């Protein structure tokens, strides 16, 4: 493999990794606070792409306006899912909450099939992103430059919110100790809603960029990226935002590189992430950046 082709794959790997990272943050934030895999996260991500589609093609919104609308609506959807499907089960066994999460995910998918239709739709890509840069013999679409930049900006904003604001402090407190945070006068329910909102908005950003890169929209589009992003979150150490980003990049990059170096394994691409997950769970169950938590009786 020549140096140029390697660079080509590298740019694709970085772009895919950033997308996984953005979705993984949503999983990791929710898991950090509720100890719950939000199975519906991938579907929330999918809804964002459809909101963009309908905003631009049906309501003739300018692209920028549609982006804002999509991010806000997706955030609202995330909060709604939490309120309807997870909040009533706050004190139930974990298995019930997980079944509820799976149910929510299926409900969103099937509702999308009914509302949006099963036929694939084309994501509206603005003129700006149609540009392809040629550097030497490699060609890089403009999206490949912008996706990592936007991910980075979103990450900086998020880390600012989590580490510097009062809400962020409350979020950290709730994830450390739910009961103690409540005793300290933190409105836990509100904080959980905010967490879902922020996570879903990041998923929306990821969804919009996913649409630019892979413009074929189907209602089940969120399934695989959602699962892989969750795996990315586990690889990085679930509950850890930087870990989720690291895991996202690792997964995206290795997925692209495996196909690049071993083309005969292309068909096994979707299985690779799961094999990696099981390997991580076996040898370093707390992930790369996770803290080791011992079980107390």
């Amino acid at each position: 493999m020549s140096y140029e082709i390697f660079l080509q794959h590298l740019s694709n790997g970085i772009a895919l990794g950033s997308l996984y990272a953005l979705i993984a943050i949503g999983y990791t934030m929710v898991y950090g606070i509720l100890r719950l895999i939000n199975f519906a996260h991938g579907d929330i991500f999918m809804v964002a792409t459809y909101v963009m589609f309908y905003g631009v093609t049906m309501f003739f919104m300018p692209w920028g306006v549609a982006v804002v609308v999509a991010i806000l609506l997706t955030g609202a959807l995330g909060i709604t899912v939490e309120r309807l499907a997870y909040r009533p089960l706050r004190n139930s066994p974990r298995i019930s909450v997980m079944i509820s999460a799976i149910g929510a995910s299926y409900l969103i998918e099937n509702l999308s099939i009914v509302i949006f239709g099963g036929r694939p739709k084309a994501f509206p890509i603005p003129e700006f992103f149609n540009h392809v840069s040629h550097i030497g013999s490699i060609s890089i679409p403009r999206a490949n430059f912008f996706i990592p930049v936007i991910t980075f900006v979103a990450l900086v904003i998020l880390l600012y919110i989590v580490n510097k604001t009062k809400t962020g402090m409350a979020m950290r407190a709730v994830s450390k100790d739910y009961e103690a945070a409540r005793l300290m006068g933190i409105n836990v329910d509100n904080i959980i809603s905010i967490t879902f909102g922020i996570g879903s908005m990041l998923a929306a950003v990821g969804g919009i960029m996913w649409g630019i890169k892979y413009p074929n929209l189907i209602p089940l589009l969120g399934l695989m990226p959602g699962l892989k992003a969750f795996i990315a979150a586990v690889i990085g150490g679930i509950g850890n935002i930087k870990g989720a980003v690291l895991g996202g990049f690792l997964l995206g990059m290795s997925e692209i590189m495996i196909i690049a170096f071993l083309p005969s394994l292309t068909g096994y691409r979707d299985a690779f992430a799961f094999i990696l997950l099981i390997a991580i769970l076996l040898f370093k169950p707390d992930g790369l950046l996770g803290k080791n938590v011992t079980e107390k009786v």
Partner: protein
Amino acid sequence: MLNKNNLIKIGLIMVTGIVLAILNATLGRYQLRILNLAGIYIVLGLSLNLINGFTGLFSLGHAGFMAVGAYASALLTMSPAQKSVNFFVKPIVPFLANIEIGFLPAIIIGGVVAAIVGAVLAAPILRLKDDYLAIATLGFGEIIRVVFTNTQSLTNGALGLKGLPSYTNTGYTWTIVIITIAFMFSLRRSSYGKAFMAIREDEIAAESMGIDLFKHKLLAFTIGSFFAGVGGALLAHLMGTIDPLMFRFLMTFNILLIVVLGGIGSISGTIISAIIVTISMEWLRFLDGPIDLGFAVIHSVPGMRMVLFSLLLMIVILYYQHGLMGQDEITLEFVKEKLKRFKKKEA
């Protein structure tokens, strides 16, 4: 040991047999198909109930183990001629090309292969808990599916297998159903079953009472996979064609719906809900087509049926977590107790 209880049980099985024989003789082909499907879903529901309900291992890889059973049995029952028709992209591996065996051994081999695959895959991950285990088993389901899509000379890849002999009939299905039910009841009464439930209630307490967690979890998973494989084999020979897409997560979801609706951990609940879910899945097909309300016609909205089922799962888990039966069983004692209370009320 022909005491009264056993006599009643034998009588019940005979009555079931007679009812099924009558149904088998009177129902049309479509209804018979649903009857078989209901039986298959009972087997599948019970096998997932063993893993999820008895032992408390949240497994989401059931469809994958079904796929193993379905493919293993299908490759054994198909005639060599049919195989060579199917495998036109790449020839089938030589050792399977000329095998053709009967249905019953094929079902058993399908179940055994699924059990072996289940045990081998589960062994390393059984120390994971709750959601990690769920995601890892979900991963297994996906890995099995992806592998089957890519092993062209073994499974015919994405093209699937067509023209399976349609061996599944009411006799086969419901004999297996009754054996499965009897097995599940006696398993739960045995020391193994008690250990499974102890693990479900509190792993740490169970371990400190001397229960070997790994051994029992592996056993539950292996038995569950065996019955999943048997169910898969029956389903394959009912459908006549199989392909990897059939065994997506949707399949696991349907079985999970059955278990949750029936009450996680209840055998009789699973049986009842398997029958209800299978019949209503067919009956509600009209929802996907156009609906005539008399004054207006709703255009057909494909997918409405699945929306309803996902809503149903949500409602059960949110407001009615016990499902139909909770962890109760309809046993002779249960019926007697109810009758006694009923009589008291009358008096």
